[in-house]
């Protein structure tokens, strides 16, 4: 039995995404195919066919799904970066994103230290008033950054129907870095009293604590992706 227009476009979308074609190219291709089908159907109807027959004839004229998919997948320039260089997308890019977010968070910490705590040797002291909000923004960014990066990885994996291996590598990497990171600050560490903030990575005093932190980050980062997978599986089984 011939596929309906909706079925054809859905199947084609899944095939192209799984073959590594970039989502923007897939979207554009499907939009133009959909417009083309509407024109073909209108032409067939003008020649006296019923709407159902016209749609069947239009689908045949459009081409079979293997040819439509092959025409796109055999052109390497339509491949997404996730397919071309997964090591960069799930190895380098998350680390760079995390580094940028942490730089901003540490800048907030350092500037808050200069503004609100000019006489203290460390910014990690009890604070009040607007300082709570100011430091809170930096602290929130610092702790949530690995989770946000993980959500980004999950979003890309879901959009591009990727196999779990590379996204998992990225998530584990981010969780381990997030769990192992420590911030230290001291005004006396450098001369001039400007304040010195340093990040260290290690297991710290408690190996269990570090691993637990990493596990929490991993769980929170992977959660939206699992929910998406679960809902998609339920949708297809319904």
């Amino acid at each position, binding site marked *: 039995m011939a596929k309906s227009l909706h079925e054809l476009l859905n199947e084609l979308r899944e095939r192209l995404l799984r073959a590594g074609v970039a989502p923007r190219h897939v979207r554009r*291709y499907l939009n133009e195919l959909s417009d083309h089908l509407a024109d073909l159907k209108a032409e067939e109807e003008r020649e006296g066919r019923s709407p159902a027959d016209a749609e069947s004839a239009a689908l045949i004229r459009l081409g079979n799904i293997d040819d439509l998919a092959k025409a796109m997948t055999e052109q390497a*320039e339509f491949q997404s970066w996730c397919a071309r260089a997964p090591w960069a997308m799930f190895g380098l890019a998350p680390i760079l994103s995390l580094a940028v977010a942490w730089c901003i968070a540490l800048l907030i910490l350092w500037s808050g230290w200069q503004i609100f705590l000019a006489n203290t040797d460390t910014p990690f002291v009890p604070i009040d008033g607007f300082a709570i909000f100011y430091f809170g923004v930096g602290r929130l960014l610092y702790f949530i950054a690995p989770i946000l990066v993980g959500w980004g990885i999950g979003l890309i994996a879901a959009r591009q129907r990727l196999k779990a291996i590379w996204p998992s590598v990225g998530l584990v990497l981010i969780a381990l870095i997030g769990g192992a990171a420590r911030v230290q600050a001291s005004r006396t560490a450098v001369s001039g009293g400007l304040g010195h903030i340093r990040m260290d990575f290690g297991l710290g005093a408690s190996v269990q604590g570090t691993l637990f932190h990493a596990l929490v980050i991993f769980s929170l980062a992977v959660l939206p992706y699992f929910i998406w997978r679960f809902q998609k599986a339920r949708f297809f089984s319904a």
Partner: protein
Amino acid sequence: MAARETNPNFMNGVPELLILRLLQQEEMYGYEIVQAIRDRTDAVIAVGEGVVYPVLHGLERDGALKSRRKTINGRSRIYYSVTRAGSRRLSDLSEDWAHLTGAIQKMLTGGQHGQVIA
């Protein structure tokens, strides 16, 4: 000895050639292009109509075509037209095709064995 170009697939580049030739005259959208190819080749060249889009997108990516969205009679369509680079590519492809067809024609009409073609 200089390497010779080969023709692994005689249809290689033909869709590009036809599309560039059509769009050289006027801008068109996908459906129009396919109909025009069918009409002007007396339906001798007939492909699954949907496969024209990856060719169009590839040409656009290479800078041979440019596209713009136009709304006509309430329907939004993507119109394609040839760029200057596309005109040059059309000229190259036309030349290659002329050599190839010339060579085949010579073969069919009994060109001499070992004669250098093109």
